[in-house]
């Protein structure tokens, strides 16, 4: 279910209406949100809902055990029951048969159709046999063991779905080269469950925070499941921390219609960024990259066309991802929740560290708190800091997927961070004059674009072609001018708004005079009505 679809619009109106009708019943509201989250996710593929439930149960158990002490048998029974019911619903029931009214086929009788259910049953039995043994360990050791088991389980699930194809195909290529055969059993063509990277990191932060005694665990399985499956941010973040979001589920949400104006603006602006900017620039990006994605290596005579394609990708990925976040924040706010800010005008950054304080903030702070700091942060001297920065960014690159280009993208940003730090360049501190700040901003934007080239290219040859084309053949063709015209036409409101917002203290759509706001609203609505791309694209970050 995509945010930019009529199905979601209908779904949200129904959920929103029912939700506020239940505004005096916290438990019912949370139950509704839980059901809505599971329907929202299951709409894509109900089988993978089981993974969310599995993650929920594992981290809820660990959270309670580490934060409070061993769980009672009844608590474990609740987790086991939840998981087994989910296994039945997600893997046994034939939902297409239900839709067609073929009642006889809804619950199949063959053993094969029950294999995942039986596997989950076996897992529950084994876990309940092992649990008392581990729970009897001394507290410090028990906490370490449970944390380790949970991290391994979470990363194991994430790693399998995210990296199996990469390793299997690499291994298959190696065995083909060395021994002349391809083991077909390894290459499973595993489907990547949407949002797995986001909710895995979210749940890991919950458990780690409890281990660090920075958070108290929740004893309510339903509350934790609702927190983990909150549909506005389930598919592509923000990666919310439990200390921010979980308490919001534990308290009645306030019915504040005054807050809805801001929420509606976030939704409209997010839709604009996605459906007008990102989706209309997608053909420009495809035109620039597609030949090289398919193996071409010819450097074009009109290199500036590639530069336009690269600028278009920078705006496309920003419009796409930050558009998703804005819609997520807006829909959450309509339900009385406040999600964290995930983007803060990143292309106005003056340095790499400034950029990472503005881009995908929920991931960059996650990496800082759970990777960079545990690695030693800046406590190990200059070289140690550089190493930690680079390692953190490389792993951040790998979070996006198993590809050497992602590794290079992370390495590139890690090295940039290290260089700026070594040189002591901090133009964002305010001591610099505006021409110098402007120059640093332009430089940083182009460095970011270079990073996006590494990110978007399917292979290193493409990177070489783009760099050579742009630097050695800076020639414009009619296609270049047509591309530039489209780029300006679709992206100018975004660029102007970002710059104007950057010069405004506070939330622009609350600070600007009402007549300016009226015109901004009209412009955005008209762009949405008239220039919504015919070919709707899926959100880019669904692939991560």
């Amino acid at each position: 279910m995509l945010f930019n679809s009529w199905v979601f619009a209908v779904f949200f109106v129904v959920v929103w209406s029912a939700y506020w009708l239940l505004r005096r019943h916290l438990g019912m509201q949370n139950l509704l949100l839980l059901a809505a989250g599971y329907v929202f996710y299951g709409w894509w593929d109900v089988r993978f809902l089981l993974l969310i439930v599995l993650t929920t149960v594992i981290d809820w158990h660990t959270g309670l055990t580490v934060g409070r002490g061993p769980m009672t048998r009844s608590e474990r029974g609740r987790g086991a029951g939840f998981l087994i019911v989910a296994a039945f619903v997600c893997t046994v029931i034939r939902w297409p048969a239900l839709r067609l009214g073929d009642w006889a086929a809804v619950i199949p009788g063959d053993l094969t159709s029950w294999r995942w259910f039986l596997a989950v049953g076996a897992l529950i039995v084994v876990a309940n046999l092992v649990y008392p043994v581990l729970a009897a360990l001394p507290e410090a050791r028990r906490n370490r063991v449970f944390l380790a088991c949970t991290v391994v389980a979470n990363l194991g699930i994430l790693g399998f779905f995210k990296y199996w194809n990469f390793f299997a195909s690499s291994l298959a290529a190696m065995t083909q080269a060395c021994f002349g055969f391809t083991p077909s059993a390894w290459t499973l063509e595993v489907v990547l469950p949407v949002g797995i990277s986001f909710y895995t990191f979210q749940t890991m932060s919950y458990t780690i925070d409890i281990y660090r005694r920075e958070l108290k665990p929740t004893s309510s399985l339903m509350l934790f499941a609702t927190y983990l499956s909150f549909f506005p941010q389930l598919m592509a973040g923000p990666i919310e921390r439990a200390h921010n979001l979980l308490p919001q589920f534990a308290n009645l949400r306030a019915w504040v219609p005054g807050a809805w104006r801001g929420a509606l603006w976030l939704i409209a602006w997010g839709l604009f960024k996605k459906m007008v900017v990102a989706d209309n620039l997608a053909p420009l990006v495809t035109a620039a990259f597609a030949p090289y994605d398919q193996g071409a290596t010819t450097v074009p005579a009109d290199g500036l066309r590639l530069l336009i394609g690269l600028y278009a990708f920078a705006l496309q990925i920003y419009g796409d991802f930050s558009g998703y976040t804005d819609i997520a924040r807006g829909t959450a706010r309509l339900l009385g929740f406040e999600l964290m800010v995930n983007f803060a005008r990143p292309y106005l950054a003056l340095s790499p560290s400034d950029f990472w304080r503005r881009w995908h903030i929920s991931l960059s702070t996650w990496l800082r708190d759970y990777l960079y700091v545990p690695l030693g942060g800046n406590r190990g001297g200059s070289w140690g800091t550089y190493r930690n920065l680079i390692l953190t960014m490389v792993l951040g690159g790998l979070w996006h997927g198993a590809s050497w280009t992602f590794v290079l993208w992370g390495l590139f940003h890690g090295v940039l961070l290290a260089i700026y730090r070594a040189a002591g360049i901090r133009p964002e501190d305010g001591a610099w004059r505006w021409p110098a700040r402007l120059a640093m901003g332009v430089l940083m934007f182009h460095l970011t674009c270079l990073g996006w080239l590494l990110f978007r290219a399917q292979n290193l040859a493409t990177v070489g072609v783009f760099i050579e084309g742009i630097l050695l053949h800076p020639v414009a063709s009619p296609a270049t001018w047509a591309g530039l015209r489209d780029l300006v036409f679709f992206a100018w409101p975004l660029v102007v708004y970002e710059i104007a917002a950057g010069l405004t203290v506070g939330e622009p759509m609350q600070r600007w005079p009402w007549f300016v706001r009226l015109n901004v609203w009209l412009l955005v609505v008209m762009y949405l009505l008239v220039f919504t791309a015919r070919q709707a694209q899926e959100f880019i970050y669904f692939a991560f």
Partner: protein
Amino acid sequence: MPSEPVVPPAAAPRPRWRVGVRVVLCAIYAVVFAECFVRLLAPQTILPRYVVATPWGVRGNAPGSSYWQSSVDYRVQVRVNAQGMRADRTFPEAKPAGTRRLVVLGDSFGMGYEVDLADSFVSRLEARLTARGERWEVINLSVSGHGNAEELLTLRAAGLRYQPDAVLVCWHSTDFDDNVRSNLFHLVGGRLETAATSYLPGVRLQAFLFSLAPYRWIGENSHLYGFARETVAARIKSAMAAWQSARVDAAVAGDVAAEGSVNAGSSAVSNYAADLTVALLAELRRETEAAGARFLVLDIPQWRSRQSFVSVMPPVSGIEVVRPLDRLLRHIAEHPQARLYWDASHYHFTPEGCRLVAEELDAAMSVPAPALTPPAAPAP
């Protein structure tokens, strides 16, 4: 002595009438803004359409109406005579002695949308036929939006009354959907049967709205209105087509399943639309020839790009089909800068395109009708 705290005076509530005035002014401003936005950034093609219900149950041009069509490329006037034809004169039903008549049935292509009357292929054809020394009258009964089903009803109720010597059906790819959507006829076991006696989508509402002078003015001048109308109409058409397709899908799938075939689903729907089209054309031919007139079908090529057009007409046996496709392709190959369709608006023919089509029609009509095997009787 401590001074008393200063309490700011409470802001007086704003009078309701002021809020109301502000809302109204904002609404007016929003409409003006939207109109300017569309005019500047997405200028629309303005194609007003004045249709009324005809006694034979389908849409007809509003008699005596006159309106302008405009786009970034042209501004043309459409004048409809008292008989609901795009023409500057009226035609008596009785054919004058020594005069031959061609009845034209079609949609907006046949009506000559987006070109002046004199530039339309129908007018050009009349001029060419007359220039040959024969006295011809072209009775143009085309109505924008018609499909072959409506054309069949029009032929029966109006076309044959003019005692035509020839009938020309202007066939276009939109007829596939139009024929299914109108649901005037359907195929039962491969046989064409009447399913409904009238198809008048939104005619009463349009008639009411266009009776209001301000609405009419907006319809003919507002780009915002043009955009809104096109968007809403496209959505309604698409929804109706989907609904009809689902209906046909179920019927055809059942039909096909009963016959033991596996060719069901969406391909069955498109096959059904093609079969329905062929059956309607065969019926048009049969009734035309039963009245002693020559029957021709103009296969209007579909625009793909400025240099590429294709024919998507299903194969029809026993029908004289005039195909201007080769002439258009040849012309565009020789004159790559030529524009044969208005590709910035609604993809009707330009005057140049009309000229080529008229030449092809003239060439076809200058020779006697070929002897063709009548189409096989529809399978029971």
